[in-house]
């Protein structure tokens, strides 16, 4: 699947920040795609997710209210989050 340039740029940023938070080995199974699940695929720990949220906020600024967005979700929804969900959220606000 070919991504449009804006989506690809956001995906690349998310991948970079995920690696900053969790280390290189997080992508050993392959690069992040929109279908990658934070929990089932990346096995990101909840404290790493907090750190990722902080980095996203620092990168995109206040208009991307990641914490506020997360807070509208049930825990089960958070656990099921994919990289694509996050990229869509960011794309709608940048």
């Amino acid at each position, binding site marked *: 699947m070919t991504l449009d340039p804006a989506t690809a740029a956001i995906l690349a940023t998310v991948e970079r920040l995920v690696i900053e938070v969790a280390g290189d080995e997080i992508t050993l199974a392959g690069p992040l795609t929109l279908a990658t699940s934070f*929990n*089932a695929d990346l*096995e990101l*720990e*909840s*404290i790493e*997710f*907090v*750190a990722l949220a*902080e980095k996203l906020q620092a990168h995109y600024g206040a208009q991307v209210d990641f*914490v*506020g967005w*997360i*807070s509208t979700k049930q*825990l089960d929804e*958070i*656990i099921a989050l994919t990289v694509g969900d996050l990229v869509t959220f960011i794309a709608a606000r940048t």
Partner: protein
Amino acid sequence: MADLTVNGVRLHVQRLGAGARVAVFVHGLVMDNLSSFYFTLATPAAAHRAVRLFDLRGHGLSERPAGGYAVADFVADLAALVDAESPDAPVDVIGNSFGGLIALAFAHAHPARVASLVLIDAHDGTAGWAAQMAATLGLQGQARDEKIAASFQAWLGRHSERKRTRLADHARALVEGTTLVADLEASPPLDLARLATIAAPALLLYGEHSDVRDRGAALAAALPAATLEVVAGCTHSILWEATALVRDRVVAWLEAR
């Protein structure tokens, strides 16, 4: 990463919301970190307070010094954080499990710094607590891992095998690589009779089937302005088992004062 160095130790801090009134959240022991509150109570609470979450020393993304894990050390960290984040006004302190014990000990040591307390299935730190905790954490090898896993089952149940392993590795490093167990064991017990000096209103939420439910009743009797609610059907992990109820109670509590 947002952090704050207190007593020579770098602590990971998350700040949400704004305003002059501050609420500080204190998480539980060993397997826990600030993310428990981040994903449950922090954002709704931030509508009413400037919320401060932090990882206790040795936990989460905070520094893990080799020593300094007595209850008094955790209280000193909390006191320094409160001084930095709310120098002029008392704060609401919300503590879960061991975090509730720290909140209680902080309120006892610094009553003027506390606007209110919320204790979620808190240990009370009276005689016997440290021995029980040390007996759990002081076990060796597989017996210890199994006991830790059982104690934190609700928490671990949400995690995959790899994460379970990483959390267990983290717990092992804290338990075996620091003086945590010895320091907690050597911490003097809290004297319930002396808690009468804590004038701040306190909300006590305990699980019906929690192993520390009787501590809730004892604290409700010892604290001058306590409200106790026993949450039906829950164990010690009420933050996970009854997240919506705990969130509603905490938000209403902050909103009302």
